């Protein structure tokens, strides 16, 4: 190395002083250590000035103890920045609504902590680490399937219960994870139902599939294709659009050349709305079909009229559902905006979490709340919400939802600028 000057003692002394300072702080912070396993020392030795709210229950791998007067923390991993935030923010708000309505469990207040997971693998892992460092009891999320797949390992290390309301990818529960459940519908269910509906009910025999090259979109279209061709229909071509792009003219032109009976899209609102609009502008008259990724008023709004007549699959839903309307009304009253496409699933997921906490938490002799992590996960598996906002909720061994008797895969059609259920 070059350029050494004569002031050799300065760095030494500075370093030594800082080392001393740092050692002091480090000792003081020592009990923040979260892998201590059952280290239950009170937080009295925290550095002066730390707010009481910041004191943590000392979480081990097995049980969580929440001291009397503290809050039960529940995490929400969703996307708060990037263009995907238009899906992520309503998810957060749906989950927070459940917390707000619940208020307390055994006289302990509940606090929801939302972290930005960027709808990506690395982002979701970071959010998971953040939430774990906050000692959350359980987590609603991650938002995107890729994020959930990547982050589940991190959560599993602490045996934390995770319930996602929006990760629909097949691979999320294949193979199943012990600590994971979801209120979102597995694409395997939905894709096959969509295919059946398109091929049999609508009798559209020739389809073009478009995916947005995401885990969700590509996965869904793969399932669709298998079921669709299996039912005797043909896929004319498979196309892809790039997320973030706004001009899909070449793809539209190509679709027009294929002259399909139906265009099926796997992806989210932003691309779906643009695609359907540009299809109609190019006077492609084939039917348009999408799934829960676009089942939202924003899709219709952003498509600017072109969405009229489009079919939207929304997963198995009971024939009559007042629960959703109730939820939607409460959501709008709370936030002044309409609920988003996964809001009700996130709301249900959070309600399952809260119900599981209620079922498994015990209050010890000192008035602290004790939650056994494994008991919490087991309790969550057993939770049944017959009137969930997204339909009756019950889980199978894989952590996927059981399709309740008497429900069919809900298909909506856009009529007069609104989604109307037709199946």
């Amino acid at each position, binding site marked *: 190395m070059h350029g050494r000057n004569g002031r050799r003692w300065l760095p030494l002394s500075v370093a030594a002083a800082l080392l001393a300072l740092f050692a002091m702080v480090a000792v003081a912070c020592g009990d923040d250590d979260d892998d201590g396993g059952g280290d239950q020392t009170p937080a009295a030795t925290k550095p002066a000035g730390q707010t009481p709210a910041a004191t943590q229950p000392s979480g081990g791998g097995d049980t969580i103890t929440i001291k009397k007067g503290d809050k039960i923390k529940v995490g929400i991993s969703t996307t708060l920045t990037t*263009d995907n*935030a238009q899906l992520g923010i309503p998810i957060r708000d749906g989950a927070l609504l459940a917390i707000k309505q619940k208020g307390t469990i055994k006289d302990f207040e509940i606090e929801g902590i939302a972290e930005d997971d960027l709808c990506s693998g690395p982002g979701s892992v970071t959010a998971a680490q953040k939430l774990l460092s906050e000692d959350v009891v359980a987590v609603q999320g991650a938002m995107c399937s890729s994020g959930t797949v990547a982050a589940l390992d991190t959560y599993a290390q602490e045996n934390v219960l995770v319930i996602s309301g929006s990760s629909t990818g097949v691979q999320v529960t294949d193979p199943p994870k012990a600590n994971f459940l979801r209120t979102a519908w597995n694409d395997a269910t939905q894709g096959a139902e969509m295919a059946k509906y398109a091929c049999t009910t609508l009798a559209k025999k020739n389809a073009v599939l478009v995916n947005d090259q995401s885990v969700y979109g590509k996965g869904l279209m793969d399932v669709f294709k298998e079921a669709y061709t299996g039912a005797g229909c043909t896929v004319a071509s498979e196309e892809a659009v790039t997320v973030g792009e706004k001009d899909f003219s070449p793809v539209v032109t190509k679709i027009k050349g294929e002259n399909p009976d139906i265009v099926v899209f796997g992806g989210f609102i932003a691309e779906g709305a643009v695609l359907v609009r540009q299809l109609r502008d190019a006077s492609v008259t084939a039917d348009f079909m999408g799934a829960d990724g676009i089942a939202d008023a924003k899709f219709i709004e952003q498509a600017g009229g072109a969405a009229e007549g489009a079919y939207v699959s929304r997963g198995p839903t009971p024939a009559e559902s007042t629960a959703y309307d109730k939820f939607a009304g409460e959501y709008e009253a709370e936030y002044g905006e309409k609920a988003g496409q996964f809001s009700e699933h996130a709301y249900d997921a959070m309600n399952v979490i809260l119900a599981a906490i209620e079922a498994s938490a015990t209050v010890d002799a000192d008035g602290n709340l004790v939650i056994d992590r494994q008991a919490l996960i087991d309790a969550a598996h057993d939770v049944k919400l017959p009137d969930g906002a997204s339909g009756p909720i019950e889980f199978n061994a894989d952590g996927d939802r059981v399709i309740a008797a008497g429900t069919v895969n809900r298909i909506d059609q856009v009529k007069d600028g609104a989604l109307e259920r037709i199946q």
Partner: protein
Amino acid sequence: MEQWIQLFIDGTTIGGVYAVIALGYTMVYGVLRMINFAHGELFMMGAFAGFYTLDAYQQHSGLNDSLPVFTIASAIVAGMITAVVLAVVMERIAYRPLRHAPRLAPLISAIGVSIFLRNVMLRVTNAEAQVYPRVFPRGAIEWGDVSVSYIRIFLLVLSVFFLVLLWLFIERTKMGMSIRAVAEDRDTAALMGVNVDRTIVMTFVVGAALAGAAGAVYGMFVTTATAGMGFIPGIKAFTAAVLGGIGSVPGAMAGGYFLGITESLSTKFIGAQYKDVVAFVLLVLVLIFRPWGIFGKREDKRA
């Protein structure tokens, strides 16, 4: 055959957008030897300005229906002004202090500006796509299976118009001459009495005006504005600028159209998911055989 023609027209449209954005890249590069990574965000801000203007007309007057020519024009002007103001502030705060800094410092500064603008708009819009009111009459000129919507024609014509306008500006005006002089050799230009600072600002202004206008028109074309919409056109336009020979104005134009058309045709050729691969492979191939770009000046350093 008709499909090929349609794809060609599709490609020309987006290519025109690339070309107009690419001009900003190439001009700034010409005078400052700097890649202005925030240029795509100016395009995005132009789209938002256009949206807010049209939306205001929609909310508060019937002008969108009765006088669409006026509202469309004012949306474009709003896009230009917004982008220009931002570009001037940006140049002053983030780039001018770095004019003599190590070569890559302004690059990072530009990336900072880009992240800043994108996230500010995310906050402002709550990450929701803003939907343009439909001001353009729907409909298209049809020729067999080829259909060219009015807005597409407008976009095509406007991009050519801007390109010609810029060409005239660069070639025929005194300011254009200064820009060329500064691009050629800044110190000599300064000695010849060119006000270098003002010329550089002017370059940003012109580039930003084009990007802002392109943003507003593109917004009308795709009828949405989102905070992230500047990124992909930005990268593509940058690619187009390099493809044409960065620093060369006709090169940027040609590069833009070339890239747009190739992308579009490759959708049919190879598949839509490979269109970006094709774009970049093409770039690599062109630069391997013509390292100075299609229209770039061959710089024989070994003289």
